[in-house]
């Protein structure tokens, strides 16, 4: 007999949704090394409405703190394009409150959560897993039938159990952020995104408002840039009249797996979900929604494995297949979009913004260009820009 049916490592959005999914039907334990759920955040806290629908979530004012109706994009030459809808398209969250709510829900369903419990070892023994867990320098062994590794971008659990989830530096972004208050001049109903290879090489700077005058102000850049993410962000803030006199009330950092999707997200007695399984949108780096969906799906497959008493890598492979159908294949297409974006110079970027419309841009990003789009782009809009045309043709070739 094992101590638990399922042990979930990591109490982030992925782990907590896995616990909500499984708590009723199995004996479930959630372990997290931190002392407080949701804190410190490694996140700008934006979540689009689509995920609320997918996850059956109703925005509550306690944690869905700012309604977002669109975005404003700022090009390298200082122009901006505003896309604002009449209704909410998403929210900026207060993640520590949101995640605590998920935790309460998971416990209501029957799961148990232990904080300040760090998994430092894992081993497969017969048909079960033994985890070595450290709490206040004391080590203990806990056993289970199946582990769901939701331990985020710094995941070691899957690696300990023989699944290589190493991040590829080329497909990993370095992120840095301040939660700032006392800032002015930014519409709090919009996400503000600033592009330019000088201000944010291979990435962008964001302002995600949390209420009027308060926002997450951050940057994500490639791993191989000359300077650190902090360097670029600090430098840019000094140039912004609305920000430079603001106060910093939180410092956040983190790395973001923006691609490098895994062929396998399972091993014997193991499933991986969320950042640990590189489940992040390669273009904007958003991962909360995908982590929740991935956690829920992993939960479903863990329950199935328990019911059928089948825990082999092969038996669990249905999980990976289903995830690709659900989200992974779309994300892979968007990865191509990111690779295209990375190759654009400031000049290309300015030109594209001037010459293509929002719908075309979205279809480029989603990898869903139609035949008609291609004809218009290749024969009319990009014909005077041979380099850009070549990039786009390469991109559009399947």
């Amino acid at each position: 007999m094992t101590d638990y049916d399922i042990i979930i490592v990591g109490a982030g959005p992925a782990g907590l949704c896995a616990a909500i999914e499984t708590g009723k039907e199995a004996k479930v334990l959630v372990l997290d090394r931190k002392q407080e759920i949701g804190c410190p955040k490694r996140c700008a806290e934006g979540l689009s409405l689509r995920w609320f629908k997918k996850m059956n979530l109703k925005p509550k004012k306690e944690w869905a703190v700012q309604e977002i109706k669109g975005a404003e994009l700022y090009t390298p030459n200082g122009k901006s394009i505003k896309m604002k809808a009449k209704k909410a398209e998403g929210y900026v969250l207060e993640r520590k409150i949101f995640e605590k709510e998920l935790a309460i829900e998971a416990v209501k369903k029957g799961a148990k959560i232990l904080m300040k419990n760090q998994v430092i070892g894992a081993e497969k023994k017969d048909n079960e897993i033994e985890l070595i867990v450290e709490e206040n320098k004391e080590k203990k062994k806990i056993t289970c039938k199946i582990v769901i590794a939701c331990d985020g971008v710094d995941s070691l659990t899957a690696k300990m159990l023989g699944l290589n989830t190493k991040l590829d530096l080329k497909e990993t972004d370095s992120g840095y952020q301040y939660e700032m208050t006392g800032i002015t001049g930014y519409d709090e109903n919009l996400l503000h995104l600033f592009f330019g290879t000088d201000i944010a090489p291979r990435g962008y700077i964001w302002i995600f408002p949390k209420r009027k005058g308060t926002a997450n102000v951050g940057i994500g850049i490639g791993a191989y840039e000359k300077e650190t993410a902090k360097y670029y962000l600090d430098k840019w803030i000094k140039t912004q009249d609305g920000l430079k006199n603001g106060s910093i009330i939180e410092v956040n950092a983190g790395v973001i797996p923006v691609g490098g999707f895994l062929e396998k997200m399972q091993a014997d007695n193991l499933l991986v979900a969320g950042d640990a399984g590189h489940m992040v949108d390669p273009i904007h780096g958003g991962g909360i929604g995908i982590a929740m969906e991935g956690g829920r799906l992993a939960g479903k497959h863990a329950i199935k494995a328990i019911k059928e008493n089948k825990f082999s890598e092969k038996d669990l492979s249905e999980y990976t297949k289903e995830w690709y159908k659900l989200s992974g294949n779309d994300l892979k297409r968007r990865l191509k979009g990111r690779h295209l974006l990375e190759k654009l110079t400031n000049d290309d970027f300015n030109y594209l913004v001037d010459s293509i419309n929002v719908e075309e841009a979205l279809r480029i990003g989603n990898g869903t260009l139609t035949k008609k789009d291609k004809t218009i782009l290749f024969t009319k809009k990009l014909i005077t820009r041979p380099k850009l045309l070549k990039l786009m043709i390469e991109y559009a070739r399947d």
Partner: protein
Amino acid sequence: MKMTVENDPDKCVYCGGCVGVCPVQAITLKDTKIIIDKNKCINCGACVSICPVGAMKLKK
């Protein structure tokens, strides 16, 4: 002389980024501390490249 990688605890904001990119699992994050297993480290510099605040340095 062999290079070694060092963490600057004054700069580090314990985000765990370096832990994730290390190819040989030489780094662990405990509470607010980064611990590097020098015996495992192969001095590849991945942790130095990814760190958002420049808290990892390769030293002689």
